[in-house]
C-alpha cells in the first residue's frame, strides 16, 4: 500500500518538499537545542514547562477525532461514518506521534528516554501517559492499516481487528484522562488542581479534533476525486457543536468555583490570564481572543442554516481550532506556573528557536498525515470509480 503514498502529481511533490523543508529547519534547530541545552527556549526555573508540553496537551485532543467517528459507526451502526472512519483513524496517528515527539523535544536528557521503561514507575502519571499514547498509536495503526488493506482488496477486514476497534474506544478516553491527570494531581498548583480537568480535556478534544476533520474533509473534496460526503460532515458538525458548548460550560463552572470561593491560590492564575496579575499579563489579549472565538463559533453553529452552509461551517471550525489551541496550547500550561509556588511572577514567552522546533514537529505530523491520507484517498478513489 505504501507505494500509493509516493505516487502523485507535481503539486503533491511540491507540498511534500515544503513540509520536508520545515522538518529540516526544525531538526537543525533541535540539534542546537540538543547540544546547547533547553536554555535556548523561553523556559525558566519558574515556568519549567511551556510550549512543547502545551502542544502535547492540545494534540492529545486532536487525536480524539477518531473516537467520535469510530464510536457512532461501530457501536451505533451509524453507516454514514463508515466512509470516513479511515480518515479519523489516520488523523489520530500523526496527532499521537506529535504528542510523543513533543515529550521527546522537551526532555533535558533525551538519550536516557528509555529509563522510563528500564525503571518502570507506576506511581508516575507520565509512565501511564507513555503507555496510553503509544498504545493508542499502535491501535490506530493496526486498525487503520488492516481495514484499509481489506477495502482495497474488496474483502472484509480480518476478525481479530474487531476487538481492537472496541478497545480503541475507551482507550481514546484514556489518553485525555491520563494527560489531564499529569496536571490535575499536583498539590501546589492551584490552577490545575481541579477534578474537571479531565472532562474539560475531553470536551475541548471532541470540539477541536472533529473540527479539524471537517476542514480536512472539505479540503479532500476539493483536491481529490473522493467526496467524504455531505451527511458525514453535517454529523461531525453536530458533534462539534455539542462539544464546544460543553467546553465553554465546563470552563464557566471552573470560573464560578474559583471566583465565588475567592481562594487566592486558585484565583491568581485566572487573573493572570484574563486581567493581569501584579502588573503582568502577556497572555491577556490571547485569552480573550480564544474566548471570543469559541463564543463566536457557538453562535454560528447553533443556527441551523449557518451550520448547514459548508462555507460558514468551515469558518466556525477554524475559529474553534484556533480558540481551543490558544486555550490549551498557550494558556493552560504556562498559567499553571504563574504565579509560582512562592507567589512570584516570572513570565514565559516562547523563543524563536523554540517555535521553529515546534513547527518542525508539526511538519512531521503534516508529512505523516499527508502520506497516510494519500494512501487512503487513492484507495477510496479506486473503490468509487
Amino acid at each position: 500500500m505504501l507505494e500509493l503514498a509516493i505516487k502523485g502529481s507535481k503539486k503533491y511533490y511540491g507540498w511534500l518538499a515544503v513540509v520536508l523543508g520545515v522538518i529540516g529547519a526544525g531538526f537543525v534547530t533541535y540539534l542546537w537545542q540538543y547540544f546547547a541545552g533547553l536554555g535556548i527556549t523561553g523556559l525558566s526555573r519558574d515556568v519549567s514547562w511551556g510550549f512543547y508540553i502545551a502542544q502535547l496537551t492540545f494534540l492529545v485532543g486532536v487525536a480524539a477525532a477518531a473516537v467520535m467517528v469510530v464510536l457512532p459507526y461501530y457501536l451505533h451502526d451509524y453507516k454514514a461514518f463508515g466512509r470516513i472512519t479511515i480518515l479519523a483513524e489516520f488523523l489520530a496517528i500523526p496527532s499521537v506521534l506529535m504528542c510523543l515527539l513533543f515529550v521527546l523535544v522537551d526532555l533535558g536528557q533525551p538519550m536516557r528516554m528509555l529509563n522510563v521503561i528500564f525503571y518502570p514507575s507506576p506511581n508516575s502519571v507520565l509512565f501511564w501517559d507513555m503507555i496510553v499514547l503509544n498504545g493508542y498509536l499502535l491501535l490506530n495503526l493496526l486498525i487503520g492499516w488492516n481495514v484499509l488493506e481489506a477495502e482495497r482488496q474488496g474483502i472484509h477486514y480480518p476478525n481479530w481487528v474487531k476487538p481492537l476497534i472496541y478497545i480503541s474506544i475507551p482507550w481514546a478516553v484514556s489518553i485525555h484522562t491520563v494527560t489531564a491527570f499529569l496536571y490535575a494531581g499536583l498539590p501546589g498548583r492551584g490552577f490545575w488542581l481541579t477534578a474537571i480537568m479531565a472532562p474539560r480535556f475531553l470536551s475541548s478534544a471532541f470540539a477541536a479534533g472533529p473540527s479539524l476533520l471537517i476542514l480536512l474533509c472539505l479540503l479532500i473534496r476539493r483536491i481529490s476525486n473522493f467526496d467524504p460526503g455531505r451527511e458525514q460532515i453535517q454529523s461531525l458538525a453536530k458533534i462539534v457543536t455539542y462539544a464546544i458548548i460543553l467546553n465553554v460550560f465546563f470552563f464557566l463552572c471552573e470560573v464560578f468555583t474559583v471566583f465565588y470561593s475567592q481562594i487566592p491560590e486558585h484565583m491568581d492564575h485566572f487573573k493572570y490570564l484574563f486581567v493581569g496579575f501584579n502588573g503582568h499579563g502577556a497572555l491577556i489579549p490571547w485569552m480573550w481572543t480564544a474566548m471570543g472565538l469559541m463564543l463566536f463559533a457557538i453562535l454560528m453553529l447553533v443556527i441551523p442554516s449557518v451550520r448547514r452552509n459548508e462555507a460558514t461551517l468551515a469558518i466556525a471550525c477554524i475559529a474553534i481550532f484556533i480558540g481551543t489551541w490558544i486555550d490549551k496550547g498557550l494558556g493552560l500550561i504556562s498559567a499553571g506556573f504563574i504565579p509560582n509556588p512562592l507567589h512570584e511572577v516570572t513570565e514565559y514567552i516562547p523563543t524563536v528557536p523554540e517555535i521553529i522546533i515546534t513547527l518542525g514537529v508539526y511538519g512531521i505530523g503534516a508529512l505523516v498525515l499527508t502520506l497516510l491520507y494519500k494512501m487512503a484517498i487513492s484507495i477510496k478513489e479506486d473503490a468509487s470509480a
Partner: protein
Amino acid sequence: MMEKSRRRFLKIAGISALGLGAKPVLDVFASSEEDVVVEAPVQEGAPHVTETEAHHAATEPRIMRSPNAKVAPQWAMVIDTRKIQSHSDVEPMIEACHKIHNVPHMPDKKHEIKWIWETEFKHAFPNLASEYMAKRVEHLGLPVLCNHCENPPCVRVCPTKATFKNSQGIVMMDYHRCIGCRFCMAACPYGARSFNFFDPKPHIEEENKKFPTRMRGVVEKCNFCAERLAVGQKPACVEASNGIMAFGNLHDPNSEVREIIHSNYTIRRKQNLGTRPAVYYII
C-alpha cells in the same frame, strides 16, 4: 581515598560477578536498601551493625557504611528565625552549601540554580502572610530549601525513580538517571528544584573535586548533605548557621530537633498540602 578504592573494588567485583550471574550484584544493592528499613530508630552518630548486615557480610559482597556515619530514619531541621538579625546571618549558610556542592552562578536569573536561598516571609509562607504583621517578621530574610517531605510529591511523579526518598528520609537525586522531564519541578509546592538549562560547569567559580558536578538537562536540589552525614558531619548550612539551624533525627524523642519542636511553636511551609515537610520554622 579509602572510601573510593573500596567502592572501586566492589564495582569491579560486582561486574566480574556478572559473568557468573547477575544475582549477587543485584543483591548488593537490594540488601543495602532492605536492612536500613529494618533498623529501629537509632541514636545519632552511633556506630552500629544490624543483624542482617552481619549476616550478609559473611556471604555476599556489600557496600559498607562508615562507622562514623550519622544515621536516622527521618532527618529533620529546625530553623530558629528569631536568631536572624540580618542578611549577613543567612548569607554564610547559602555560601557554604553552594560552594561545596558546586552550585553554579548562572548569569540569567531564569536559569538560576539554588539549593538554599533567602526569601521574605510572604514568599516562604504565602498562605500565612497578612497585610498587617510584626515588623520584624515582615522584612525578615528566611532561608528556604528542599523540605525533604515525608510524603514528597516530587518522588511520586518521577517516571524513572531518579528522585527517591532514601532510607534516612532524604529526598535524593540520581543525576545519571534523570531524563530531565521536569515533572518533579511541577510537582514541588516549594519551588525547591532547579534545572540545568545549560552546562553548569563554566559557571562554577571554584570546583570542589569531592562532590560531583552536574551536566545540562538534569534537575538538582538540596540533598540535606547526605554525603557529609555519611562521614559523620552535619550539613554544611547547619554548621555555618551559627546556631540558627538545628538538625537531627525526627523519630527520636530525645533528639535535639525533637526537644526544640517540643518546647517551641513551630510552623512548616504549606502544611495543608499533606506533604509533611521535615523543615520546621520558629518565627
